[in-house]
């Protein structure tokens, strides 16, 4: 394998070596089941509590409000189903957005089949929800609002504190899927009036298969996984101790380096965006400023995203696309459609997400490749041929 330029940090990140070192003893020497009584177990129990404190510190929460899970999808599912069923005496209405991760959307669809009603808020061309739309969607049956902190595809950061304030005033539980935001955006659950927050370790240089759900003290929620008394009886199953230790270390590192991380990635991101925008008929998806520091999402008109990914892969560059062909389904990304892109343009999207191991050299390397690849695919594209012949307008999204 030759040079690898990894620009898919929103999909996952490598586990940092400091994190892995911290985890290692919990596979081999410190293997006790935290629920047991002997010293070997007390050691692992203590390690879990230490991790809980680290997560709480970065989120501005109390340690007893942090519950470890198997990842973002579990945290989202737990919230949706756990809140819905625990509060159905109060109402059956949930508000979310059209651009949520499928872990939220598909859990909502499941609940709709079981008597709950869900409002999916639209977003504007940048992917932002409208607070007036949101306020109007609230009814006396609304029991939960779930708005993602930052979008995984286009990187748009939603007005979370504003949504939190409205929910607090109305006495409605507010959940945010912060899987993409933790480590990339400063978060304070108390100041932002967040009642539940999902996070996943592998998005911030921790291991895969472990996450957490912040549940504010006093929130009424049913368990998703029934069984033993772990996690205060709210989430059964022997704890993934090495994973939880890794999550703790990773979030601690993310918290410590947040400012420099954001500053460095924002610079690299804007350089990459600036370079790409020089390619004719290209468009930035998402908000130019209210945006995850490492997220670049663009569409190149007249070409299809998977083809671009394959060409990039041939040169060692790892990216992703909202095109149907790269997603395993036949429809383009629901997020790109929600921001008003016509499907034929959504098929030509490319997401490059930068991370702590991305260098300026990597950005230059990709900027050197992209114009060639876009030209190559356009030369092959009957859409481009027609466009040149007809001389149509430039790449504009339908509003």
């Amino acid at each position, binding site marked *: 394998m030759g040079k690898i330029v990894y620009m898919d940090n929103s999909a996952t990140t490598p586990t940092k070596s400091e994190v892995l070192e911290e985890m290692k003893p919990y596979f081999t020497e410190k293997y006790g089941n935290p629920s047991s009584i002997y010293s070997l177990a007390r050691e692992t129990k203590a390690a879990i509590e230490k991790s809980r404190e680290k997560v709480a510190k970065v989120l501005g929460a109390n340690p007893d409000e942090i519950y470890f899970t198997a990842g973002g999808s579990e945290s989202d599912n737990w919230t949706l189903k756990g809140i819905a069923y625990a509060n159905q005496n109060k109402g059956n209405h949930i508000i979310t957005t059209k651009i949520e991760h499928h872990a939220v959307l598909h859990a909502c669809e499941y609940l709709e089949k079981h008597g709950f009603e869900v409002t999916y808020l639209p977003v504007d061309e940048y992917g932002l929800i409208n607070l007036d739309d949101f306020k109007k969607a609230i009814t006396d049956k609304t029991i939960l609002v779930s708005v993602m902190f930052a979008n995984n595809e286009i990187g748009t950061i939603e007005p979370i504190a504003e949504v939190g304030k409205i929910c607090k005033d109305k006495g409605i539980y507010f959940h945010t899927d912060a899987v993409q935001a933790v480590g990339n955006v400063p978060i304070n659950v108390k100041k932002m009036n967040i009642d539940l927050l999902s996070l996943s370790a592998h998005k911030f240089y921790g291991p895969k298969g472990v996450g957490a759900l912040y549940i504010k003290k006093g929130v009424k929620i049913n368990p998703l996984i029934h069984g033993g008394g772990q996690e205060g009886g709210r989430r059964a199953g022997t704890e993934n101790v090495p994973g939880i230790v890794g999550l703790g270390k990773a979030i601690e590192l993310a918290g410590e380096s947040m400012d420099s991380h954001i500053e460095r990635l924002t610079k690299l991101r804007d350089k990459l965006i600036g370079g790409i925008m020089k390619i004719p008929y290209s468009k930035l998806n998402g908000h130019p400023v209210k945006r995850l520091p490492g997220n670049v999402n663009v569409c190149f008109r007249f070409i299809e995203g998977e083809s671009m990914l394959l060409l990039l892969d041939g040169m060692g560059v790892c990216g992703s696309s909202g095109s149907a062909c790269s997603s395993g389904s036949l429809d383009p990304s629901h997020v790109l459609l929600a921001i008003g892109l016509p499907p034929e343009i959504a098929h030509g999207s490319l997401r490059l997400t930068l991370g702590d191991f991305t260098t300026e050299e990597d950005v230059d390397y990709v900027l050197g490749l992209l114009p060639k690849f876009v030209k190559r695919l356009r*030369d092959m594209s009957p859409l*481009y041929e027609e466009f040149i012949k007809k001389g149509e307008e430039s790449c504009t999204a339908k509003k």
Partner: protein
Amino acid sequence: MYSEKVMDHFMNPRNVGEIKDADGVGTVGNPVCGDIMRIYLKIEDNIIKDAKFKTFGCGAAVASSSMATELIKGKTVDDAWGTSNKAVVEALEGLPPIKIHCSVLAEQAIHAAINDYRIKHGMEPIKEEHKDIHDEERCE
């Protein structure tokens, strides 16, 4: 996910381009679904003398176009018409199940180009056995 053959035909596609004075041109697909294929044919004495393509689509769509044009070059028009999507898939050493429709598109593009040629030469177009895979509202 792709065979070496598919990757070869994607990275080094054969017969990309257009034929200016083509005897038949066929365009199939739908940009909404993410793939459009256009095949150009040069036909002399009922033989496919040359075939070229332009495709907007994924790796499998490009590779299917490339392989389809390779398969029909030198064939009689009737034999070219008989080049099935299965033949394209076999020549590509397989396609992932979700990408089979790309090979169907290639077969349909050949048919559309041949019918264009037939109409231009005062012949009845041959009726397409399979309906256009993009006739449905959804992309399937």
